[in-house]
């Protein structure tokens, strides 16, 4: 069961890496969130913790339904070209992300210093984290950066629930709230950028330098 969710997470993440257009990215983000929800649920079943159930619920509510919907809505409202603007093309991105996968595997084995079975989930989490960072750096549009941020957070949630069985409850709630707010605010700014610059290619936002 857990194996399935891990598999799904990996696939979704690779899909993100090779995504060329924003809708594709959003879609694969939704898949990823779904498998995250699955993974959390499994952990919850194993550990029998109430708050993990709630967290899983929240993931489902926010990340699988809420946020992707909001993102699509924003995209619709600002009708700009949909491509993400790749700094590194898909092949290179794919290779790099394979590298990331390996790196995070090493790293988590170092960190977890215990049997490989416990190290696998954290490894996936780190991998997702790295991929998120990668997308933020190597994709041009503002949308890509928002989604990258969200992906990183997915990674964190996976890590938290994997190694700790969840943070203290109210902290989790607060963070969720925070994520949601930040997405809304960023969406608002994307809207503004589009209005002022008539594009959302943030790489061309370089009036302020030096």
């Amino acid at each position, binding site marked *: 069961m857990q194996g399935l969710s891990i598999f799904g997470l990996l696939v979704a993440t690779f899909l993100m890496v090779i995504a060329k257009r924003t809708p594709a990215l959003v879609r694969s983000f939704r898949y990823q969130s779904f498998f995250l929800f699955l993974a959390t649920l499994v952990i919850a079943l194993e550990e029998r913790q109430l708050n993990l159930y709630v967290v899983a619920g929240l993931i489902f509510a926010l990340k699988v339904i809420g946020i992707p919907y909001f993102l699509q809505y924003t995209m619709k409202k600002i009708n700009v070209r949909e491509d993400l603007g790749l700094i590194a093309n898909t092949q290179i991105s794919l290779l790099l992300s394979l590298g990331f996968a390996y790196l995070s595997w090493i790293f988590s084995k170092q960190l977890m210093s215990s049997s490989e079975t416990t190290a696998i989930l954290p490894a996936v989490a780190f991998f997702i984290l790295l991929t998120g960072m990668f997308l933020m*750096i190597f994709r041009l549009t503002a949308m890509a950066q928002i989604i990258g941020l969200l992906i990183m957070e997915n990674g964190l949630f996976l890590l938290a629930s994997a190694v700790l069985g969840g943070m203290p409850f109210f902290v989790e709630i607060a963070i969720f709230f925070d994520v949601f707010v930040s997405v809304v605010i960023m969406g608002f700014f994307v809207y503004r950028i589009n209005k002022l610059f008539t594009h959302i290619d943030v790489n061309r936002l370089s009036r302020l330098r030096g």
Partner: protein
Amino acid sequence: MSDPLSLFFLATILIVTIPSFVYSIGYLKKEYSPKKILLGQILTFLFVLSMLAVVTVSNMLAFLIAWEIMSLVSYFLVVFDSEHEKSIQAGTIYVVMTHAGTAFLVAAFLLLYQHTHSFDFNLVKVASQTIPVHTRNIIFIFLLIGFGTKAGIVPLHIWLPYAHPQAPSHISSMMSGVMIKTAIYGLIRFIIYLLGVNDTWWGTLVLILAIISCLVGIIYALMEKDIKKLLAYSSVENIGIILFGVGLSMYFMSKNMSYWAVFALIAGLYHLINHAIFKGLLFLCAGSVYKAAGTRNMEKLGGLIRTMPITAACFLIGAMGISALPPLNGFVSEWLTLQAFFMGAWHTPGTDKLFLGFCAAMLALTSGLAAACFVKAFGITFLAKPRSSYAEKAIESPVSMRFGMLFLAGLTIIFGLGAAVIINILSRVAGASLGIDTSAMVFSVNNITIHPLAGNAMSLSPLTMALILVLCGLLGWIIYKVYRKRAISYNTWDCGYYRLDARHEYTATGFSKPLRIAFSFFLRPYRTTKKSGESFYHIKSMTYETHTTPVFKKYIYKPVLAITFKSAKFMRRIQPGSIHVYLAYIAITIFVLIILIRKF
């Protein structure tokens, strides 16, 4: 701190600042708005206060604070005419240089603190002997650089000729007369008094710096047309002369020749207070010329001796003093310094004599050049016909200014004639700062004659010398009067060309030409000619200028600045404005830190 050293500097400061302050009353009037005058006077007051604090506090931290406040206030005074681009630049150069110097002081003080665990002078003095040798050397170097910047030791003098002339004249006289002396106070207080000298090379280094400062200072002074700049450069030279005394005393101290150490320090301190007096005086005179004529360019002055007799007389006395002419004070202190070299060398074993002799010769050269410099300064400014309408319309300055000048002029004479008395006082100061008991040492007999080392032929009595000079002059006058022939007044001989005017007079530039050629290896003079006219063959007018290359600025400071800015511009590229790059920095930082985690 209330030991003789502090008291001596206290006295020096007050002697110069009080007349300058009186002078300022007349000087500032009508030049600035009342509000600004008030501000100026408040700042001046703070300036004097901070200087007094510097020489009296007994704690390194307090010293540092007083020192910085002094720099700050003096900066405000330098940029007092804040409209002029020049004074802004001058102020900036000044305050940055002095701040850089302070950085070295901070380092030195903290090194002292680290080894003595106290900021208090007395405790530091007690514990300073435990400091390891190489640390002592480092501290010495730092102190030398730190105070050298303030004192204007070459090549750290670069700010001085900009800052001093730009300030209002009474401030210039305080800065040149007193403020740069606080640096000498620092050197004596921290190196000689607190640290204690026991390496010969310290003294030697100071002497070498003294030679360089003297020569460079006076040569630049000779080349100047701006009278206040000339005076500023001559301050660099005189700091050199003072350093001769101080360095020599350090040198003798390291050789345990306590008597001659005291003697040399006396000479140094004597010249210090003398320079304070006559440089203050000269700046005040220059100020009153500037106020009257509205220009500081000597080429436009001349003939002022008729319109401004008092100023002229005071300037003459100052010039005589600074050119070490008997029986005025400058003569006494330079004579003492030379004697310190001669007699010290006589008592020093070995080949160091050669070095000391060389130093003495350089001092002689300096005083010769100084005489030339001030013949030029006085002759071109005050004598012959006015060279411009500025000089023609000049009038004598108001009472308060005259008072300031006359007071200092009087002191110039008194400190010459009363040498034998003063030297006894100074011996106590020197003894206290060197930690030597001078009660047994003889420097003068019956308060008239300077007579070091009783029994030796060497002795001097400025008082009698003055008497003799006056009598001889009288004799000449009597002979002159005996032959009662009439003296008729007529034009200067003009080789039969009947329109001799001011344009035929020798100019400041012309006056210094022989020396400009003699020292061309250092001054690197060059000429610029500008021709104007509709064609090359039909030239309407031609301008021709001679310049000298500012060696230190061109070959030391400019390159350093250039390199700094170039590297800064290069660094600018790391921030191209692309958010992706910035995010990449974060990622890279994390990677690097994690890879290097074992290193921390």
